[in-house]
């Protein structure tokens, strides 16, 4: 007899899966199925989040804890916002089916400890990315990277140990589009509609694999080189975003830069950094989703959007301008937004021991913030274009304001997030493997009172 939590989780997975299968088998009205499936998943996921961590594993070895409990809620929210607010001509059965399937696979992956099942889900998840990309150049570009990610992830999960974890992290970097694997992810934004790229890249589904890797056991001294590579990658992506002449590519680089910061936290051996990474994933993913959708909305109205001159679109579309600014600032951790708290946790937990690395990460976050304002000023401020741009439609506003409101609420009252997360059992994989101490530095930790689980 499985508990209520697992029942609801399976129910949510079934909802997403059935929606995907139905649309794939010739279903129509994707613009209705998508929001309904997303809304149902959200509704089923909320009680999962608040019930508290059940004892023992579920069917198929699934684990419901602080890592996996929020998965259904978050994926449901993302599907709802995407299918409600994306430009209508992109909300077609094949695209929505792939989105629902990807969501279901990654919710399952979050609840799956490393092993053969996780490897299978990972390969399936990588495969489901391709139908989400635009046909032609974007898929040709993405195929080798996604194949590499699938292979590395499967081998890493099956091999285990330090080498296995290293391969799995490499797989996550390739799947998420972190440098040096950014070409396919950023290319998706410019070689096809930004809405399709946003659905594939912004949710950072690849992080689901990293969430359960036994970092402290496997990496030890290897933690610092991993951190260095991730920080440098994120910094490089932020700098590349700044030199772009088109909004779509700039948004793509900004997205992968934020993903690098989230992965830095998720891959941390300490609980605080790990939790910060998970929160950064949720908050950053939501914000980047919103940012990508606003970019898609502007692109669908006027065609390619240059950022090498001022367009003054705020004069005609103040709501789109406000949403762009809100989502952009939320993605980079402005105070009052959810990512402010999560980035703070990543900073404190991950690299408080290494001042240079800390300053490099802080510089990255700072550069991201500057890039957001640079893009906002170029696209929305300045002398207005003579041809007016229609502002956000009612359905676009509904999805986007919902996401923005949640980001601001979680930013102003982050205790709500923490309380809910703790109720779901926030110990995560570190507690399962007895790693909730401060890792290998526990004996020399000057502040043992800050180490969870002591």
């Amino acid at each position, binding site marked *: 007899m499985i508990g209520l939590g697992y029942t609801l989780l399976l129910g949510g997975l079934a909802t997403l899966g059935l929606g995907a299968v139905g649309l794939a088998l010739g279903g129509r009205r994707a613009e209705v199925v998508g929001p309904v499936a997303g809304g149902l998943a959200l509704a089923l996921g909320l009680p999962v989040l608040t019930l508290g961590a059940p004892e023992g594993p579920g069917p198929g070895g699934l684990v419901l804890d602080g890592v996996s409990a929020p998965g259904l809620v978050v994926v449901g929210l993302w599907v709802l916002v995407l299918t409600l607010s994306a430009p209508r001509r992109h909300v077609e059965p094949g695209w929505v089916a792939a989105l629902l399937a990807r969501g279901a696979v990654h919710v399952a992956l979050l609840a799956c400890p490393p092993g053969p099942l996780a490897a299978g889900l990972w390969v399936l998840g990588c495969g489901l990315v391709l139908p989400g990309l635009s046909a032609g*150049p974007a898929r040709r570009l993405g195929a080798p990277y996604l194949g590499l990610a699938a292979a590395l992830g499967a081998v890493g999960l099956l091999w285990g140990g330090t080498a296995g974890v290293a391969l799995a992290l490499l797989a996550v970097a390739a799947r998420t589009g972190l440098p040096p694997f950014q070409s396919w992810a950023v290319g998706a934004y410019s070689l096809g509609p930004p809405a399709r790229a946003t659905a594939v890249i912004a949710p950072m589904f690849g992080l689901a694999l990293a969430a359960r890797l036994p970092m402290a056991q496997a990496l030890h001294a290897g933690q610092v080189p991993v951190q260095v590579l991730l920080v440098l990658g994120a910094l490089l992506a932020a700098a590349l975003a700044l030199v772009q002449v088109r909004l779509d590519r700039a948004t793509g680089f900004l997205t992968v830069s934020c993903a690098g910061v989230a992965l830095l936290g998720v891959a941390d051996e300490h609980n605080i950094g790990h939790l910060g990474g998970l929160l950064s994933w949720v908050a950053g993913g939501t914000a980047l989703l919103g940012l990508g959708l606003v970019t898609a909305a502007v692109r669908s109205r006027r065609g*390619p959007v240059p950022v090498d001159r001022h367009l003054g679109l705020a004069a005609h579309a103040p709501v789109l301008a406000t949403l762009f600014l809100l989502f952009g600032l939320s993605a980079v951790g*402005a105070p009052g937004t959810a990512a402010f708290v999560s980035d703070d946790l990543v900073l404190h937990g991950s690299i408080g021991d290494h001042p240079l690395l*800390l300053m490099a990460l802080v510089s990255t976050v700072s550069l991201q913030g500057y890039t957001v*304002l640079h893009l906002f000023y170029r696209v929305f*401020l300045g002398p207005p274009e003579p041809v007016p741009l229609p502002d956000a439609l009612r359905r676009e506003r509904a999805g986007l304001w919902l996401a923005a409101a949640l980001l601001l609420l979680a930013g102003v009252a982050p*205790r709500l997030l923490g309380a809910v997360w703790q109720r779901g059992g926030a110990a995560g994989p570190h507690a399962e493997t007895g790693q909730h101490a401060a890792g290998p530095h526990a004996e020399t930790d000057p502040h043992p009172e800050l180490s969870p689980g002591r």
Partner: protein
Amino acid sequence: MSGVLVGLGGVALGLPALAVLAMGVPFVLGVRLSEQAVARLVSAAFAGALLACLALDALLLARGGEPEVVTLTQWVALPGYSIDARLVFDAASAVMMTLTAMLCGLIGAFSASYLHKDPGYHRFFVLLCLFGTGMMAVASGETLDVVYAGWEVVGLASALLIAYFFGREAPVRHALRAFAVYRVCDVALLSAAVLLHHHAGESSLGSPHPVEGGMGLLIALLLVFASMGKAAAFPFTGWLPRAMEGPTPSSAIFYGALSIHAAPYLLIRAWPLLEPQPVARGALVAVGALTALHATTVGRVQTDIKSGLGYASVTQVGLVLVEIGLGLPTLALVHLAGHAFLRAWQLLRAPSLLYDWKQRVALLGGERPPALHPWEAVLPPALRDRLWRLALERWYLDELGALALRPVAAAVRALDGVDRAVVKGLSGQPVPQNYGETP
């Protein structure tokens, strides 16, 4: 007593934030508030905040000035880790909070008629209230976490108000320039907050156990660097006169009264961390002196009144930084408060002053030739011309900055070229580089 202080502190911080919400929610719902409603809302918010601040001042005086630290709320609470929103009420925060509430309220009242029928009327007041919220957090924050949050909000409000007249390109460009300087220096502030938290166990600015050794020096230097951006200290002075593109009331409150003084105030607040670090204090004296020298020379060649007043502000702030570095934080606080009122008044008066001056000149029968300042008269002409040129070029700081950034930008563009080559190679399609080249 703590409960009363928490309540009053919450009111002072919360009222401007509530005003932002009260103006923002109608915008989301597509409802447009009247100018009168907006003006009354803002006046009520800052009047309430001022009353709360005055009550706090009275309580503080009744306690003989004894400082009190209160926890407004436990902002983040996780196993083994928490961030408390802690406020401190002492002489410095009392002065700064009262100054903030008073000046924001005055500027709000001035702007209600100054910006009447301006298309950006609502936007101005939303940003003014946002700024007020941020400044209150900076003024009353006991931990660097709270101060940093307010600091960022102040910087964002500043950047958005410089670009107030966004129908022209120049204000937008200058706003971005100011924001770039803020972001560079904010790296230092955030780094200091994290390092302090990590090594002292908390990011309290008044910690009785400051971090010692090299780490203590690093934190102090980071705080000095962090203050240089908002203070427009040398070599970051270039953004401030350009920031005068914004409306006069915003120039008054940001670059005359409050935002520019947030930087020395941060150092006054962090005095327990600075005091044991003579190297950091020496650096601060050097920066302050250079700032004053630079600003006083460049200010003398300005041809518009707001730029001249901007440089005059920077000169005084440079002197305030010197005072702090020399170990005179109380004098610095008094100097800061007096200067804030004077400069705000001068900037608000500037538009009508020009009008009065032109009328007076006309009455006198035409313009008089400009008189040389006494020290200008004693300099040899060749040196005077060189100094004039140096001042006109703002000591070539802009050119030096561009020179430093050029190789970095070139390297990043080269990497972008590599990425585009990879995309073209694998997808068979080149990435469009210019507008109009659709895939």
